[in-house]
């Protein structure tokens, strides 16, 4: 079974402060991990995925297999980063196809 845990429902930081959104996962194989973001009144969209090893909008995430974590980080929060962030894990299924399992999400609020 695959599971994703985001322990914080709400994270409030001041503009310019560092941000870390936590994500832990449980999966028996080699996981594909993602962060998705939903800005107010917009559709859910991909922020970044670990296989790309890229930084998007200043955000990075490192896969730590020992700690089974994929925390999202940004050194300096901006007001426009306020959004709902979901960590997600994808893996192959025995019967075919693949399935994405989401965490419960963390609402990031960046205050001035």
């Amino acid at each position, binding site marked *: 079974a695959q599971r994703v845990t*985001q322990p914080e*429902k709400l994270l409030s930081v001041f503009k310019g402060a560092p941000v870390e959104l936590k994500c832990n996962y449980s999966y028996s194989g080699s996981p*594909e991990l*993602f962060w*998705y973001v939903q800005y107010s009144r917009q*559709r*859910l*969209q*991909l922020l970044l*995925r670990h*296989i790309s090893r890229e930084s998007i909008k200043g955000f990075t995430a490192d896969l730590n297999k020992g700690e089974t974590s994929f925390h999202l980080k940004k050194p300096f929060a901006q007001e426009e980063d306020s959004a709902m962030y*979901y960590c997600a894990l*994808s*893996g*192959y*299924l025995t*019967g*075919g*196809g*693949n*399935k*994405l*399992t*989401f*965490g*419960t*999400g963390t609402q990031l609020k960046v205050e001035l």
Partner: protein
Amino acid sequence: DVKVTQSSRYLVKRTGEKVFLECVQDMDHENMFWYRQDPGLGLRLIYFSYDVKMKEKGDIPEGYSVSREKKERFSLILESASTNQTSMYLCASSRGQPQETQYFGPGTRLLVL
């Protein structure tokens, strides 16, 4: 640009009604998904399909069924709507590999009275 569209943004239905939610994608994606999004619960997978006429149960399939007669279209059916199915419903599509991005529709907010 990948486009995933959903037939309605808002729906109001009565308990016991049969409800159809339609989703269409224009990028020839193999996989299509239906989720419901509830505060504090995140996104939960209802059903998914990795090929035409194929369907697999997700984590919360009870009270729902799906249909995929054409590759671009994936329908979610509430056979007899109940108040606990009031939610935001999101459709998504992706290519076939686990590392592929899922592209989401704008969502349908369903209210069951």
